């Protein structure tokens, strides 16, 4: 019978903490890059400029159609031949480009979900297209995209476990290494799952707090 030894967790707590912090760091940088990418291409999808619209659609469709694992390996091995990316920045850009495509779709549907009459009313009051976008449409789009955006951020934290495949140091790779030396795979992977859950659930709670604060102002 398997003898559980949970002391492997406590003894190696520094490894888990370091790995979790790396995961959060890489996820945070990826999200910060993915948001502008998503906003630019999301607005591109509904732009009046045909070329911008086409480029945005190609980006979104290709990225949505390629598995993240394949994208990461492709960026690391293929793009890595031409650009000195390394596993750290290679994974960050891989995650950002991947999440950016989904955020672009969220942004697009958020803007399109604001009724056309809102833009018309703002324009009828003398606002330019840009002012109407900034003061009337985007604040409403923002409220709409918050819940799907939150899911996307949580996905990204979980997806970051895949970057261990190209050798980026984070929670999952640290766990793999620890299993290799300690042979305590059940304990280690169970605890890793718990740590991922703590990270994603905390994020979920933070976003929920902001959502209720926003919706209060409209009640």
């Amino acid at each position, binding site marked *: 019978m398997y003898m559980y030894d949970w002391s492997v967790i406590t003894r190696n707590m520094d490894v888990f903490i370091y790995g979790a912090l790396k995961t959060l760091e890489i996820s945070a940088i990826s999200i910060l890059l993915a948001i502008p990418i998503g906003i630019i291409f999301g607005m591109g999808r509904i732009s009046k400029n045909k070329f911008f619209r086409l480029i945005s659609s190609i980006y979104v469709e290709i990225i949505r159609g390629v598995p993240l694992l394949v994208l990461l390996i492709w960026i690391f091995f293929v793009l890595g031949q031409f650009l000195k990316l390394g596993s750290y920045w290679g994974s960050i850009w891989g995650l950002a480009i991947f999440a950016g495509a989904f955020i672009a779709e969220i942004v697009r549907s958020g803007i399109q979900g604001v*009724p056309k*009459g*809102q833009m*018309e*009313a*703002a*324009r*009828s*009051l*003398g*606002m*330019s297209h840009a*002012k109407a976008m900034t*003061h*009337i449409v985007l*604040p*409403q789009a923002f*409220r709409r995209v918050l819940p799907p955006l939150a899911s996307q951020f949580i996905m990204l934290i979980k997806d970051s476990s895949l970057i261990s495949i190209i050798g980026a140091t984070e929670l999952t790779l640290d766990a793999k290494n620890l299993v290799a030396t300690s042979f305590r795979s059940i304990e280690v992977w169970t605890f890793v799952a718990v740590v991922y859950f703590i990270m994603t659930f905390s994020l979920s709670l933070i976003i929920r707090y902001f959502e209720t604060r926003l919706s209060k*102002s*409209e*009640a």
Partner: protein
Amino acid sequence: MISIKNVNKSFGAHHVLTDVSLEVPKSNVVALIGPSGAGKSTLIRTINALEPIDNGEIIVDGISIHDKKTDINKARLNIGFVFQSFNLFPFLTALENVTISPMKVKGLSKEAAEKRGKELLASLGLADKCDAYPSRLSGGQQQRVAIARALAMDPHVMLFDEPTSALDPEMVTEVLDAIRKLAKDGMTMVVVTHEMGFAKEICDEIVFMADGKIVERAAPDKFFTNPDTQRAQDFLSKVLNH
């Protein structure tokens, strides 16, 4: 004040406005009436360029609205527009709905915009609704906020696109009263409406449209008792005898 000259517009093969010309002198109130699909809403929306035109010219307050060289954002400051479905900004309070454009477009201070906004809301019987969000207001109250919002820009012309069509019957009066008051104050207005009694009472001229054309123009008394065209007679017999 408003001068519409030979305006044409089509959506694909469908001609929505055919050679429409109309003059609205200062302080006049004109009702656009006619069967649905006649082009009334399209016409009123072309007056502030919410709807583009194919050719022709529209001049409001001396400014050619559809001229490429015209700064349309500036031109629209003279033209208030009230929508059938109110289109209030749901994330802003009644007062914020009224003050946002004076602040962001005209650069008014918050204090000045709020002072004026409160006066306008009070004059429309909404003094106690300043802090209410649109979702907490009745249709009639929402439409009055929309009127205050348009008036806050101090327009010289007001356009109403079926302002009471989306309202429950008991709320029609409060909105019509607000428009009536504007007429008394000498505001130049064009109103697309199905309220025949109201049109007859406050309008200087009735413009009857059908199939994208102006079919008949007449003073209200003449139009409602003895219209010249068969088309107008048919329309009136349908809307008045029920």
